[in-house]
């Protein structure tokens, strides 16, 4: 079957029909047999182990050993991924056959894309080597991250709730119904979503900006030439980062406590009124932001300090010689240079703070309650509300739909950031 002058189209069609056939036609016999073996194994799997789960994924009906809707869905998703991975292999196999054939025709020893690759990887062992290095990570990440996330997304399109709750009940596909309920103008869900979303954005922005400003102020103070004991000041100021955040949050839970907390006692001692920290919606929000700033300032301080030290001294000297005032040299030199370095990190922390679950869950638990029946409290951000909807109210489907909305929000935001910071371009240039 092998031919000295293979035709790319023929090779492609052969490989499309049977993986490896095109390769064999091109004269790569071992490769062709290996590819055929992969396809054979896949076809056997498809009609044995994978059949029931794939059927279950489409219908969500009990099938074979799978009775619990969650198990049906999960097995179906794993099977679908196996199919997708094979599909990727099959397409790569077609592309490979076409390229090999055309490069043989052009009397090139190797296909174009192989020319770019280091000679070492032209051997079969060299081609597989990188995949062996990444296989353990990929395998674990596949089961701990990828499959569970796909499952979470899938739940958003089902009616998994208190009334359709396995193992007793079963849930079904309901399409976009959850999203329709969440986004329908005027509905109770939409009102709650708006309230939570607005506070979520305010919290993320306020927390990030305030912590940044505190970090900036402190690092500028520490940079000052006339200040002594810098090491001691720095160590003390870094402490909130060193203490595990969970511990700090629980400590603030005590500090703000209205029966025994010292903050109210101090306020009373200096002649002010006690504050209903966790009972009043505004004060609860203030307590959350204050705790956040206390915990995150050191991170900002250290990043800003590192950035400040990377600005060369000569620029300031030149500015001073030219008669710039301290304020001018700050606003015209330090700040712009600092922002160009710190901005990507700042955007990344903003995205992280958007989902900063721990502070709100452990400090206020989302409370105090707000009139309305969907359970979102005054300090609930999307993630704590989602958590509550899932674990407390067993509204898993609508909770998952909300989580998908959060994800879309964060991805759009982060993609802009990556575009700005050039991560994607850098990756492309590396290859």
């Amino acid at each position, binding site marked *: 079957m092998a031919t000295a002058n293979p035709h790319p189209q023929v090779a492609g069609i052969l490989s499309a029909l049977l993986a490896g056939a095109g390769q064999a036609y091109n004269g790569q016999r071992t490769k062709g047999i290996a590819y055929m073996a992969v396809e054979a194994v896949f076809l056997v799997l498809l009609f044995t182990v994978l059949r029931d789960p794939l059927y279950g994924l489409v219908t969500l009906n009990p099938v074979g050993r799978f009775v619990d809707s969650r198990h049906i869905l999960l097995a179906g998703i794993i099977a679908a991924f196996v199919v997708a991975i094979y599909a990727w292999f099959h397409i790569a196999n077609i592309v490979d056959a076409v390229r090999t054939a055309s490069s043989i025709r052009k009397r090139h020893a190797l296909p174009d894309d192989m020319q770019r690759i280091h000679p070492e990887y032209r051997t079969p062992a060299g081609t597989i080597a*990188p995949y062996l290095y990444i296989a353990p990570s990929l395998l674990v990440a596949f089961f701990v*991250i990828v499959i569970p996330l796909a499952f979470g997304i899938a739940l958003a399109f089902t009616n998994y709730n208190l009334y359709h709750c396995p193992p007793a009940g079963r849930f079904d596909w309901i399409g976009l119904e959850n999203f329709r309920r969440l986004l329908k103008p005027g509905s109770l869900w939409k009102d709650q979503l708006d309230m939570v979303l607005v506070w979520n954005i305010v919290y993320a922005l306020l927390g990030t900006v305030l912590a940044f400003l505190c970090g900036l102020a402190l690092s500028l103070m520490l940079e000052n030439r006339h200040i002594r004991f810098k090491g001691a000041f720095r160590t003390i100021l870094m402490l909130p980062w060193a203490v595990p955040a969970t511990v700090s949050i629980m400590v603030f839970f005590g500090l703000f406590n209205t029966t025994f907390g010292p903050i109210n006692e101090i306020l009373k001692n200096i002649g002010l009124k006690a504050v209903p920290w966790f009972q009043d919606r505004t004060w609860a929000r203030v307590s959350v932001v204050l705790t956040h700033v206390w915990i995150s300032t050191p991170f900002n301080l250290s990043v800003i300090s590192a950035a400040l030290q990377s600005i060369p001294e000569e620029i300031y000297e030149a500015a001073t010689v030219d008669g710039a005032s301290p304020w001018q040299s700050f606003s015209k030199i330090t700040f712009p240079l600092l922002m160009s370095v710190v901005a990507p990190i700042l955007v990344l922390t903003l995205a992280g703070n958007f989902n900063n679950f721990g502070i709100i869950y452990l400090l206020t638990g989302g409370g105090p309650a707000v009139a309305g029946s969907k359970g979102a409290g005054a300090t609930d951000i999307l993630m704590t509300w989602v958590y509550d909807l899932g674990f407390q109210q067993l509204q898993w489907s609508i909770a998952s739909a909300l989580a998908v909305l959060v994800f879309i929000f964060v991805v759009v935001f982060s993609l802009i950031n990556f575009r700005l910071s050039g991560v994607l371009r850098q990756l492309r240039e590396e290859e």
Partner: protein
Amino acid sequence: MSANTATGKNARKAKRTVGTVLIYAGLIIACIIVLYPLLWVLSCSFKPTAGLVGSSLIPSNPTLANYRKIFTDPNVNFSRWFFNTLKISVVSALLTLVLTTPAAYAFSRMRFPGRRQTLIGFMICQMFPGFMAIVALYTLLGWAGLIDTHLGLIILYAGGAIPFSIWLLKGYFDSVPVEIEESAMIDGATKFQAFTRILLPLAKPILYVVGLINFLGPYAEYLLAQVVITSGSKWTLAMGMRSLTVSQFATDWPIFSAVSVLTAVPIVIVFLSAEKYIVSGLTRGAIK
């Protein structure tokens, strides 16, 4: 004219002194804000359980009873919580390193189909709210028989840390010149030997940083722990502390404080002694 410059100098000097004093004042106020919550908890841990804890930093009848209690009271099993937490954090940090170091090496030193897609995929995984995974993780752990086991929790921590750790390690490996490995390979070393004998020793700082970050993360993690672990004997520190803040709590506060102090002190020491490395490890990619 000389008198003028002199007064000018004096004025500038005075202005500078005022500025310096203001900066000292600012720094001291910041230090007080930072230290008060920490010192308050420390002092609460020495306050008797009966009385009100109050705002003072110096306990009137200091006592070690709380510390004695957390090592003897079966309901506040500090040593067990601590041992569980230590085991989980150390093992998951090591597991993360073992899984991600070879992968980061491949991403940094090799070019292969799917490389860029996988790295971007890892980045996108980081943006998903972790909550979405919980139902599936619980089901998967159930299938594997790992509900209410430390191994289950360790796998979740190590797995969740993979994308972030690979990015961090890859960034560092990229900054180590490839020529050293190449010359070793000319001398007959295999690719794998170049990785283990040349690159890994050079990359020790980042290995420590990634290990440390993945130790500190699980050390006080609460959410996943609370989903996976149910029986009290397997509780972690965060779960134990949470149980003290939500149950009958005004009286439990000194006990909680003692647990917090003993939980935080080892981490504070570790963190402060390694702070320089952590900061440079985290910011290396961003600040060049």
